[in-house]
């Protein structure tokens, strides 16, 4: 049974999506309950997986009993177990938290919404557990197609945002697939572990082209600056409930995919000879600075958060590009941090929009004193985004910063500091509005739906735990998940 855990983690949301789509049309209210049950199951399976992998090492599961490299392999190793646990928990909490708003926001379309949500989570889980390069592409497209549909379900301007997302996203997936084609041409295999063994003997030029294509393709999917153009509009226009699920998870899982392919297929030694890591590090540094600067210029709350994600993904890319232990630790920690933090912020932005009709940062003053619990969660998440010490966000940045200093690359350290300074400004613009502004208007609206408040507080608690318990998280979970070849 435990051998099939990776498969079950993927099948739980994926099959439920089909059941929800079939049943939800006939039974009123079944869709949301089934979705919650499926996501709870996914969460439990992921946590069990995390525990099993920490105790007994990686779990390999062979599709149809065919051993790799012939058959498709699902692998739950320390890295995928850690990210999968984060993804499953954040998905469960954000979907539960936005449940109350879905009824108002997408009346009559709940069934389709929930089946897309489950397909998205299924695709993301698939990306996390697969050990096959082509299979990764298929899961990437399952997740992406559901994401396009979810964005398109939004209000005015959403279909346009969704179509640009679709065109750019599909271009990214095509580039990735072409890169995999070059790898296949050079090695004759698609199993990641198998390709990792053969890639050293591959023609150098072919390998170089494959690397550029894969980094470019997954760079688009993880919104690495300057390939981030699809993201702000998509998350600004999509339904609030969908944004609170997608913004925390999609780019993070794609960043995981990039780490997986680079460090588990190419491997650290080969990477250090090429320019892929330099490309990633410079792209990351540019993203950290430009994400911060562009976020400063935004007036729309969700657009601002999306640009802040550009900066946070930059830290992940920079950490991965520095190719030492501290950098990778920071990158992996920051994937988890940004997933949780953006969960809080997008849920709160949904509450602001649906309860208080507030889209812009300048109008946030209307919330002052009206939603104290949501505000408390936003304060915690915001401070973590800035990188205030006891919170989760600090440690990701700190590890990457020490990695940059250890490599003697002071300009990368300076980029992180500059990005953090920018984030101080945009976060305090928000905090100033919700904490100190003069309330305007007479509307008596109060705190958002109870589930949304609870979800915000839960995720805020996780942010605090990731910070306070950081030493344990790193020593028990992240340290095991580092690739073996790092200095």
């Amino acid at each position, binding site marked *: 049974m435990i051998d099939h855990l990776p498969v079950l983690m993927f099948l739980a949301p994926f099959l439920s999506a089909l059941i929800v789509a079939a049943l939800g049309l006939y039974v009123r209210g079944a869709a949301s309950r089934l979705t919650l049950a499926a996501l709870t199951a996914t969460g439990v399976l992921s946590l069990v997986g995390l525990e099993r992998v920490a105790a007994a090492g990686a779990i390999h599961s062979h599709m149809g009993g065919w051993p790799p490299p012939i058959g498709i392999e699902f692998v739950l190793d320390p890295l995928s177990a850690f990210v999968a646990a984060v993804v499953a928990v954040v998905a469960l909490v954000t979907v539960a938290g936005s449940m109350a708003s879905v009824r108002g926001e997408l009346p009559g379309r709940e069934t389709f919404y929930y089946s897309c949500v489950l397909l998205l989570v299924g695709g993301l889980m698939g990306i996390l557990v697969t050990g096959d390069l*082509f299979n990764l*592409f*298929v899961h990437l*497209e399952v997740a992406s*197609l559901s994401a*396009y*549909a979810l964005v*398109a379900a939004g209000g*005015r*301007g959403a*279909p*346009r945002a*969704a*179509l640009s997302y*679709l*065109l750019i996203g*599909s*271009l990214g*997936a*095509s580039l990735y*697939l*072409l890169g995999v*084609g070059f790898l*296949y*041409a050079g090695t004759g295999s698609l199993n990641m572990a198998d390709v990792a063994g053969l890639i050293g003997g591959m023609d150098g030029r072919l390998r170089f082209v494959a690397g550029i294509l894969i980094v470019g393709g997954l760079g688009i999917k993880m919104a690495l600056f300057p390939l981030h153009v699809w993201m702000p509009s998509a998350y600004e226009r999509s339904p609030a409930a969908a944004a609170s699920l997608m913004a925390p998870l999609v780019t993070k899982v794609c960043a995981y995919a990039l780490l997986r392919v680079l460090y588990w297929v190419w491997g650290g030694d080969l990477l250090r000879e090429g320019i892929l890591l330099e490309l990633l590090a410079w792209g990351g540094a540019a993203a950290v600075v430009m994400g911060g600067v562009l976020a400063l210029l935004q007036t729309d709350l969700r657009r601002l958060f999306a640009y802040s994600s550009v900066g946070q993904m930059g830290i992940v890319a920079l950490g991965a590009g520095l190719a030492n232990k501290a950098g990778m630790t920071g990158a992996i920690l920051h994937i988890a941090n940004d997933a949780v933090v953006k969960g809080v912020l997008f849920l709160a932005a949904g509450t602001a929009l649906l309860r208080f009709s507030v889209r812009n940062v300048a109008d946030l003053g209307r919330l002052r004193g009206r939603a104290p619990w949501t505000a408390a969660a936003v304060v915690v998440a915001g401070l973590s985004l800035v990188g205030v010490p006891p919170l989760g966000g600090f440690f990701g940045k700190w590890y990457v910063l020490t990695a940059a200093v250890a490599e003697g690359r002071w300009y990368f350290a300076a980029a992180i500091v500059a990005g953090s300074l920018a984030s101080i400004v945009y976060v305090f613009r928000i905090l100033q509005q919700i904490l100190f502004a003069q309330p305007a208007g007479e509307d008596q609206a109060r705190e958002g739906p109870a589930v949304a408040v609870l979800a915000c507080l839960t995720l805020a608690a996780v942010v605090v735990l990731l910070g306070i318990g950081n030493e344990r998280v790193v020593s028990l979970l992240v340290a095991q998940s580092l690739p073996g070849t790092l200095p």
Partner: protein
Amino acid sequence: MIDYLLHRGPFLLFVLLAVLGTYLMMSHRNYLKAIVGLYLLQTGLIMFFITLGFRTGGTVPILMDGRPLHNPLPHALMLTAIVVGVATLGVAMSILRRIQAEKKTIEERGDGSDGE
């Protein structure tokens, strides 16, 4: 020259389709043309993978008559990729219909309703 083209034909077709498709996607004003571009790019990719499986003098992998076999794996992969491509096309077209309903146009910037 003819010989060269005959040997490299499928690769050249892939390059042509991919470049044409990417160009259409990048230079589009009309969303439908951009979607066509995407489809051309995906078709080019399918061409590329199929070419990888080709062996000179080969035969279909169910005839075991001593001749070398074409590699069937890329075909199997491309079946999946075709399904993905069709699904993408379907989602794109339905989104396009919503754009048309909302903006009365399928041009990228062709409406007066708001200044995005």
